[in-house]
């Protein structure tokens, strides 16, 4: 199949099957069984691998690169993925997502967006602009980006949730920024989601934020699972250990994603990529066996000694 030009029927078939599926049920003839994770606040399940768009989808008006992004989205949906995450901070990523969704015939995406402005009064206008870029009737999840003006924005988001304009509310941070405040907001606000950086090397969130999310019933989105590609680049020349096959990991990317997804508090990881083969590989990481605690320790120790 030429994934640069996916048929609308193929995409819709995969998406429709996904929408009808429950936990880890077959989604289509082509799609593997995808690990589904519940959103604690609602019980709704979503595939455990999402798609980030930071840098990768910021391609402006370039028609060639836009089509490449749409091909990545097509492969993502076809493999069983659903959550796509973006932000007004990500340049042209939002209109590029909208282009892809339109091209693919509006597949059933779980839309995760952010509000990113220092002034609470600008939030509604920015979110409406984001919605127009995506071309969706409403967002599934709206997050306060990096806690910027979080008090004002959360007030707005709660009101929007009440009015049915957004289904879930969350906050984000990345690369270990402002974890103390993040924890405080997690403790006192009624959040459905938090988004944090977590991977086999950056494990600070295991101490407080991940256990807290579990205790408070907050879904966790993991961003920058590959340290923006630095981690996978660093591991490129290294041999994958033989025992990686025990957890069904056939690449370093799958090795890392399986480590992340095996943490019981993690709901979705959102690796970003510009490549169709990588997006398939990423979604496939959310299928098959996941490491247990002993294997997780072994994996982390192995990476540490490289």
């Amino acid at each position: 199949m030429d994934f640069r030009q996916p048929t609308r029927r193929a995409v819709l078939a995969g998406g429709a099957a996904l929408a009808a599926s429950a936990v880890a049920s077959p989604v289509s003839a082509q799609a593997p069984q995808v690990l589904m994770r519940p959103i604690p606040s609602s019980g709704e399940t979503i595939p455990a691998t999402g798609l980030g768009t930071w840098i990768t989808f910021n391609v402006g008006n370039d028609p060639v690169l836009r089509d490449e992004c749409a091909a990545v989205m097509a492969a993502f949906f076809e493999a069983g993925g659903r959550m796509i995450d973006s932000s007004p901070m990500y340049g042209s990523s939002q209109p590029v997502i909208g282009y892809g969704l339109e091209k693919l015939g509006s597949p059933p995406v779980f839309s995760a967006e952010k509000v990113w402005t220092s002034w609470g009064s600008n939030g509604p206008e920015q979110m409406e602009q984001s919605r127009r870029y995506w071309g969706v009737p409403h967002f599934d999840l709206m997050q306060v980006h990096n806690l910027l003006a979080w008090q004002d924005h959360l007030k707005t988001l709660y009101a929007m949730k009440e009015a049915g304009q957004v289904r879930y509310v969350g906050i984000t941070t990345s690369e270990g920024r402002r974890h103390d405040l993040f924890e405080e907001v997690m403790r006192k606000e009624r959040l459905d989601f938090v988004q944090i950086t977590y991977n086999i090397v950056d494990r600070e969130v295991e101490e407080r934020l991940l256990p807290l999310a579990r205790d408070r019933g907050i879904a966790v989105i993991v961003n920058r699972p590959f340290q923006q590609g630095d981690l996978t680049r660093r591991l490129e020349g290294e041999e994958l250990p033989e025992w990686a096959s025990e957890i069904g990991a056939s690449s370093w990317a799958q090795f890392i994603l399986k480590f992340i997804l095996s943490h019981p508090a993690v709901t979705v990881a959102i690796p970003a990529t510009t490549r169709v083969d990588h997006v398939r590989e990423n979604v496939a990481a959310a299928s098959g066996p996941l490491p247990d605690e002993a294997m997780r320790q072994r994996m982390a120790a192995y990476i540490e000694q490289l």
Partner: protein
Amino acid sequence: MSEWWGYRLSDFLLFSPRAYWRLLELHNEALWPLPLLTLAAGLLAGGLALLRPKAASRVIPLLLAVLWAWVAWSFFWNRYATINWAAIYVAPIFALQAMLLFVLGGPRQVDPDGRGWWRAIVVTLLAVALLYPLLAPLSGRPWSQAEIFGMAPDPTATGTLALLLLTRARWCVLLFPIPVLWCLASGITLGAMDASLAWVPPFAALAACALAIAQPRKAARPRV
């Protein structure tokens, strides 16, 4: 605004190197053969600066003013802003430089000969700006992604600095900051992109500053 403190420079690099170089390629393609004309304008300005006919005093700053305004509008406002929202704020700064060149860009009436070595280095700097397209193949990129004087900001800023030096422009203290700051900012951006020749724009800017300080004067200051 303490929220901003948590960001690093690399967090503001919103695009991949591929998206940036493709942007330049689309820019050149969309406006072809205009890149040839802007490059010819650069050659003309360089020729006038070296030969110093009477018209040079007015033509060179006018040419530069037009090119800076063009880069502000066509590159920053229309093109670069599609992948970098900060470009919207850079466009007016380039437009301001165009205005400054238009208003203040006339040459100083001084002895034009100067010291040979100084002049040779400034001419080399101008040559770097006009030969900037060569950096594309030298960096392993195709010619179609070349940065061209009058089309892309880096060679335009570098060439402007050289021309200001060659023509001994008045008000250099006002005409230098924007191209110098742009070259430094561009070097940082290219460095964040891991571009192999990221050092070129800041090196050119620092060289221009050094040349401005060392430019020959009628009376040398006594040594202490």
